[in-house]
């Protein structure tokens, strides 16, 4: 075990897989010489050479289109999109091509590729350096969607994603890139996709969150502990495939559910979780299913701190499931 930031966990995962598998290539805008604008790929070009870690032209469409072609040919590309907000020029390649290649070819051609991209608010990035677009991907059959929330998971989920035979959207919560530290297992460390974790055990209300929202929810849980409420926090780790069981089991135990996410409220992934529970476990519910989310506005700059779910809003959301 080594103490690492989340960002270092990702870098360590990349190094582990690049060491273990020659087919793994890392590329994108400024990932080579500059080591990435967040330095996630720092030093990889020196370690593995320009053939395996390289800069690309400023074209997300080209980056992802080429990555798909490489994957089809037999490599394991790990392209980076500099910010998730900038993935949309490549959106067609992702949803029309990568997601559907295996299905449409009857399994003849596959796209084992991991698209790494930082997402979410918290760095005062305004409209275009802060968005959380996970739903665009969870709504696209054929893609897996992974969001780590600890340094160890960042490494372990990334390793599993690279080894996975299907295209994976690997969304990195940039807010906690450097602020979150934790012990990370050395060397091979694979956390399976599709298995959630209980980030905190509790008995009175289930909170489902992911990425940078976990730590907000933990603080809210601490706060509520004071008034005797015991909060369970479920981190699904992968939104697709989703570990429904861990969520349903928790809700059956606590009888209450709050989902917390940064994306705009309407059609956010917390709504999907609410809908699953309202279909499969409604009889266990003792209160409304509450969503605490970003507002239905573009992501603001000056008021970022107000826009993002914070401890107060999460606390109030949880309280609403008790008194409504």
């Amino acid at each position, binding site marked *: 075990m080594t103490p690492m930031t989340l960002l270092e966990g990702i870098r360590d995962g990349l190094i582990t897989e690049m060491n273990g598998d020659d087919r793994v290539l890392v590329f994108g805008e400024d990932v080579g010489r500059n080591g990435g604008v967040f330095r996630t790929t720092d030093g990889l070009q020196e370690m593995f050479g320009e053939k395996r870690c390289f800069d690309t032209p400023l074209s997300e469409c080209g980056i992802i289109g080429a990555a798909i*072609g490489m994957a089809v040919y037999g490599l394991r590309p790990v392209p980076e999109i500099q910010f998730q907000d900038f993935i949309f020029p490549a959106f067609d390649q992702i949803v029309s091509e990568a997601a559907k290649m295996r299905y449409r070819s009857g399994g003849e051609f596959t796209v084992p590729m991991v698209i790494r991209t930082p997402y979410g608010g918290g760095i005062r990035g305004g409209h275009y350096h802060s968005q959380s677009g996970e739903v665009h991907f969870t709504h696209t059959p054929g893609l897996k969607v992974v969001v780590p929330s600890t340094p160890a998971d960042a490494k372990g989920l990334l390793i599993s994603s690279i080894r996975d035979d299907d295209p994976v959207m690997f969304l990195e919560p940039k807010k906690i890139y450097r602020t979150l530290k934790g012990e990370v297992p050395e060397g091979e460390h694979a956390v399976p996709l599709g298995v959630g974790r209980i980030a905190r055990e509790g008995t009175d209300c289930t909170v489902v969150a992911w990425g940078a929202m976990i730590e907000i929810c933990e603080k809210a849980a601490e706060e509520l502990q004071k008034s005797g409420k015991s909060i369970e926090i479920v981190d699904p780790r992968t939104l697709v495939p989703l570990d429904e069981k861990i969520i349903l089991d928790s809700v059956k135990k606590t009888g209450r559910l709050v989902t917390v996410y940064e994306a705009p409220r309407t059609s956010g992934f917390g709504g999907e979780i609410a809908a699953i529970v309202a279909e499969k476990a409604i009889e266990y519910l003792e209160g409304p299913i509450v969503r605490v989310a970003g507002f239905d506005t573009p992501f603001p700059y000056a008021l970022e701190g107000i826009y993002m779910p914070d401890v107060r809003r999460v606390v109030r959301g949880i309280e609403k499931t008790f008194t409504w």
Partner: protein
Amino acid sequence: MTTNDRKTDRSTKANSSGTRGSSPVLSVIDATGKVSRSRDPSLSKEELLKLYATIVRTRVMEERALNLQRQGRIGFYVPCSGQEASHIGTAAALRDEDWIFPAYRQAGIPLLRNVPMQQIIDEWYGNDGDICKGRQMPVHYSFRQARLVSISSPISTQLTQAVGAAMAARYLDEDSVVLSYCGDGGTSENDFHAALNFAGVYKAPVVFVCENNHWAISTPLECQTASETMAIKAEAYGFPGVRVDGNDILAVYQVAKEAIERARKGKGPTLIETLTYRMGPHSSSDDPTRYREANEVESWRQRDPLDLFRKYLKGKRLLTQAIDDEIHNAAREEVNEAVKQAEDKATPSVSSMFEDVYRDPTPQLLEQRDDLLSLGEASAGSEGFFPL
């Protein structure tokens, strides 16, 4: 908004041989079937006859397809008549280990690469013999055995992928080359730009073929781009573009051969513009009389690539009427037999619908499948829930 006042001459005259503007158009076979000796790729008789037979088989197959579509026996079809030389000639210049990322209008390539007619026609029917398991519309083939990568509908998305595959080949120190196709309309899409730019930057061993058939559905060339030619667009990416008479299979073959060898030697990509024409509708849903003139179509029919090649072969005494008839008859029989078999095959099973989304189905997919199947069983007695 009226477009550019420029009016493109879409007749064969403007395009056949000689030059247009500053861009020479390579042509080998003249209107009488004679060949300019210096450019004859000197293929063997077998090679020439295989090319010819592939055009014939493609043509015969397509006539049948349109017929089946009109009868409601298959759902859709995209004909390529008039453009066979363009894609068969380019693909013929490849080696077997080379890869192809086609668009949807290169129906001759699977035949050239020895894909059994049965697999092609099963795809039209989307039956349980179809490699794609009935998941895509007709003509959206996938033939791994022929290194022909799964075709999709969105225009030009294959181009960037082809570049990636070429980069992969180079990374793996393999000397295979990748060939990819798009239409004139396809040059306007995002992926055309990204693909050519990446290909230039990484000197990828890829050859792009733009089949310029002068129309994108009902949209004429002058509304597609103000560029003098499609070939010239390559300059914006730092590699050569060439124009060739796309109905002249020998010219097409020759140009492709050079480009492919160039790529194989590590000298980078080429854009080939083949000047051609689709003689039929855009697809079985299209009525081209709404947007183009009969005389334009007629002028191109005069330069049907099949006729032109036949003239050449007959002139060279490589093809007799008897052999020609035999090729046609064999093709008809091949198609008949495959259609018969295809019609006897079942629709893919309902549960197959949930396969291949991922390597292993998610719990959600299994639940959805079981839920659906339970409904089928419950009501199978009454009116038969699954009619397909």
